C-alpha cells in the first residue's frame, strides 16, 4: 500500500521501491501502448535456443528492444534477417529485472510487402485478362521425355532435390541444367532468357523452372512479367516449381503444369521406369494369351466346320439312301408276308370247313344215305314211307337195296 506524495520538497516524501515504480511504469506503458504497428530495421538479431527471437528495431534516431515468442515466431511466413526492414505488431511491456521497456511482437511482416502484394494482384489480373492462364492452351507434358531441361540455381537444395527425384524414378535420365540467379536484380531476365534458350536449342522435351523456398521478395523474379511471357511463349512445355506448397507465383499460373515443391517436379516430369517395365510385361503376357486363345478358337471353329462337312459327304448320302431303301423293302416284304399268311389261314379254315361238309367224310364215319329207290333225294323222315316199298341205302362202300318191313 503506497502513500500519495504530491511534492518532492517539504512535507512528507513518498518513497517507492524500485519494484513499485517499475510496476507503475509497466502498468502505464501497457495500458497506453497496446497493439501497435511499428516499422524499423532489424539489428542484434538472436535466434535463441528456446525458439524465442530477440532483436532490436531501430531507425536513424532511436531503437527499441523486441522479443518474439516461439509460438508467434513459428507462425511467421518469412525469416527475420539482420538488417532487413520489417513491420511488426506488438505491445509495449517492461522487462522488470533490467528496467527496460520492450516490444512484445506477436506478428511480423517484411516491409514493403504491401507494395509487392499489390503488384502481384495487378499483374495477375492483367495476364489473366490476356488469357495467359487459360487451361486449354496449356500443353501436355511428354510421357517419357528424352531430355529434361532445368532452369534454377546450380547451388542450393532445389536442384539437388529435382535431380535426385528424377534419377530415383528413371535412373538413365538425360538432364540439361541451365544455371540462373533465382533472386535479386536481373534474376527475372536471366530466367526468361534461359527459357528462350532452351526453345532455340530445340533439344529438351520439357522444362522445369523454379527454386526453393523463400520470402516473397526472394521468389519475386518468378512473379515478374518477363518470366510469365517467356513461359507463355515457350513451345516446350514448362513445369513451374517455385518455393513451397503455399507459395503460388505468377509463373505457376502461366506454366503448363505446377509442382508445389522441387521434389514434386521430379515426380511430375518423368515416369517410374519400374512401373513402365511392369506394365510392358503384363501387356506382353496378355498379348501372348490373346493370340493363343484366338488360334484355339479358330481351331475349334475349323473342327466344327469339318465335322459338319463330313456328314454331307456324297457317299454317305448314297449310303443313307440305300439304307432307307433296304428298310422300305424289308417292310414291304413283311407286310406281304403278313397279308399272305392271313389269307392262307382263311383259306385253310375254309378248306377244312368244306372238308367237314364233304358227304363222303360223313359216310366214312358210318353214316349212310337212304333214299327211295330210284330217287336221289336223301330221306330225312320216315313219314310217307309204307312197308313194302323199296329203299336204297348208300354206304361208304357199296349200296344196299332194302324192302321196308315196318316203321
Amino acid at each position, binding site marked *: 500500500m503506497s502513500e500519495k506524495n504530491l511534492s518532492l520538497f517539504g512535507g512528507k516524501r513518498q518513497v517507492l521501491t524500485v519494484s513499485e515504480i517499475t510496476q507503475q511504469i509497466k502498468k502505464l506503458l501497457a495500458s497506453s501502448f497496446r497493439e501497435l504497428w511499428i516499422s524499423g530495421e532489424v539489428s542484434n538479431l538472436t535466434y535463441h535456443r528456446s525458439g524465442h527471437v530477440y532483436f532490436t528495431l531501430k531507425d536513424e534516431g532511436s531503437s527499441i528492444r523486441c522479443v518474439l515468442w516461439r509460438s508467434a515466431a513459428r507462425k511467421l511466413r518469412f525469416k527475420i534477417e539482420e538488417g532487413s526492414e520489417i513491420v511488426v505488431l506488438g505491445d509495449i511491456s517492461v522487462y522488470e529485472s533490467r528496467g527496460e521497456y520492450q516490444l512484445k511482437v506477436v506478428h511480423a511482416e517484411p516491409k514493403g510487402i504491401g507494395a509487392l502484394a499489390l503488384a502481384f494482384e495487378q499483374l495477375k489480373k492483367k495476364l489473366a485478362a490476356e488469357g495467359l492462364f487459360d487451361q486449354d492452351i496449356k500443353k501436355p507434358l*511428354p510421357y517419357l521425355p*528424352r531430355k529434361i531441361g532445368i532452369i534454377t540455381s546450380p547451388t542450393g537444395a532445389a536442384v539437388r532435390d529435382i535431380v535426385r527425384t528424377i534419377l530415383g524414378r528413371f535412373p538413365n*535420365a538425360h538432364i540439361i541444367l541451365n*544455371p540462373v540467379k533465382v533472386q535479386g536484380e536481373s534474376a527475372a531476365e536471366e530466367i526468361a532468357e534461359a527459357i528462350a534458350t532452351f526453345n532455340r536449342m530445340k533439344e529438351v522435351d520439357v522444362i522445369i523452372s523454379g527454386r526453393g523456398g523463400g520470402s516473397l521478395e526472394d521468389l519475386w523474379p518468378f512473379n515478374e512479367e518477363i518470366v510469365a511471357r517467356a513461359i507463355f511463349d515457350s513451345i516446350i512445355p514448362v513445369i513451374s516449381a517455385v518455393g513451397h506448397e503455399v507459395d503460388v507465383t505468377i509463373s505457376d499460373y502461366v506454366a503448363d503444369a505446377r509442382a508445389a515443391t522441387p521434389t514434386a517436379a521430379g515426380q511430375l516430369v518423368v515416369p517410374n521406369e519400374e512401373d*513402365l517395365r511392369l506394365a510392358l510385361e503384363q*501387356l*506382353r503376357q496378355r498379348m501372348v494369351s*490373346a493370340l493363343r*486363345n484366338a488360334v484355339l478358337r479358330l481351331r475349334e471353329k475349323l473342327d466344327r466346320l469339318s465335322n459338319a462337312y463330313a456328314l454331307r459327304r456324297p457317299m454317305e448320302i448314297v449310303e443313307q439312301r440305300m439304307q432307307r431303301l433296304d428298310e422300305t423293302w424289308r417292310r414291304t416284304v413283311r407286310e406281304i408276308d403278313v397279308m399272305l399268311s392271313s389269307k392262307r389261314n382263311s383259306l385253310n379254315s375254309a378248306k377244312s370247313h368244306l372238308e367237314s361238309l364233304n358227304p363222303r367224310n360223313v359216310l366214312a364215319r358210318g353214316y349212310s344215305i337212304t333214299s327211295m329207290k330210284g330217287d336221289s333225294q336223301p330221306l330225312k323222315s320216315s313219314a310217307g314211307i309204307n312197308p313194302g316199298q323199296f329203299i336204297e341205302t348208300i354206304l361208304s362202300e357199296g349200296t344196299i337195296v332194302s324192302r321196308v318191313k315196318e316203321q
Partner: protein
Amino acid sequence: MEEEIKETGSQDGQESPSYEDSFTKVEALVKELESGELSLKQSIQKYEDAVKSMNRCYELLDEAQKKIEILIKDAQAGITGRQNIEIE
C-alpha cells in the same frame, strides 16, 4: 503370308514413335486380339505389329543413358559450351 508386313516408324516421317504412342498402339492391338473377332491372318498380323511396337517401347527404355550436363554461359556470348556434372 501373302501380304507384306509394313514397317512401323518409317511412315511417321522423321520422328520415330514416342513411348506413349507405341504403348497405346500395343494396348489397342491387344484389345483387338482379345476381341476374338479376327481371322487367323488378321490375328497374326496384329500380333506382329504389337510385337514391333512393344519392342520400340523396350528400345526407348534400354537406350536411355544417364547424363547430367550444365550449360556454360558467358555474359556477352551467351551459351558457350556444356559440361558433364555430378549432382549429389
